[in-house]
């Protein structure tokens, strides 16, 4: 099974993508399945291991949180940018230790932080497990550290480790 279908979820997503592109017909479905299996095997060739997902429920929850945060910070940053009072907010670098080690988890965190206006992933030191980000609207460092560690890292840890 795994030799034929290395990454079931991925394959499914790919098939869905195909259908989204080519339209939903029985013929396209057949094609979609065939092609996505092939594509998935391409990834297999790269020797990529599929991430060990533990708690599926948390994913949805987490997604919700993230989307909300992104929307919120969009508004916040946009407001700061248009309102002339640039001086009020100050930006700066924040370093924090991460427990999260799983690459997929880190990737997710990176995507989240980057997609969120106001936080930018700059450097991750794997030796120390230390993350350096830049925060656009830095009122209090600790607040940001807490938010990232509790709001994002914890659920990710639960999902991936």
């Amino acid at each position, binding site marked *: 099974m795994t030799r034929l279908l290395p990454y079931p979820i991925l394959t499914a997503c790919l098939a869905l993508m195909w259908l989204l592109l080519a339209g939903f017909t029985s013929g396209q479905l057949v094609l979609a399945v065939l092609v996505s299996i092939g594509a998935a095997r391409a990834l297999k060739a790269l020797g990529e291991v599929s991430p060990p997902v533990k708690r599926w429920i948390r994913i949805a929850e987490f997604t919700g949180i993230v989307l909300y945060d992104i929307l919120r910070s969009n508004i916040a940053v*946009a407001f700061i940018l248009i309102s002339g009072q640039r001086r009020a907010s100050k930006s700066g670098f924040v370093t924090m230790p991460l427990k999260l080690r799983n690459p997929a988890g880190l990737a997710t965190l990176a*995507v989240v932080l980057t997609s969120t*206006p106001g936080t930018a992933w700059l*450097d991750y030191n794997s030796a120390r497990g230390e993350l*350096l980000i830049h925060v656009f609207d830095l009122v209090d*460092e600790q607040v940001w550290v807490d938010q990232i560690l509790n709001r994002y890292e914890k659920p990710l840890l639960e999902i991936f480790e």
Partner: protein
Amino acid sequence: MITFSHADVPLWAAIVGSAFLLIGAGLTLIGTFGLVRLPTFYERIHAPTLGTSWGTAGMVMGSTIIFTAASARPVFHEILIGIFVTVTTPVTLMMLGRSALYRDRSELNPGVPPKGADFSATEQDAAETRS
């Protein structure tokens, strides 16, 4: 391939869709506005994410709504754009930010935390940037 004329778009869809489109475009514009106005690179790097997150999302939703309504069948493929932008933009921005950090460090520019700094060092840096 789907084609429609604006006349086929129901009014509600036109209104809602337009709203989303306007939001998306607006956010993107603001983002690029920031790109121009912000003083340091590390601040500017935040600006485009407006466009790549809700800017794109807004446009995508808008067009999805309009197409779906006009062609009277679900047209979701714009979603893909949203997904891919969300997934790929971080790669660029992370790598770019890191590169900038490296360059500033190796040129010993002020306002960036030195290599392998611990918290206190970073706080000082933050303080510097604040002042």
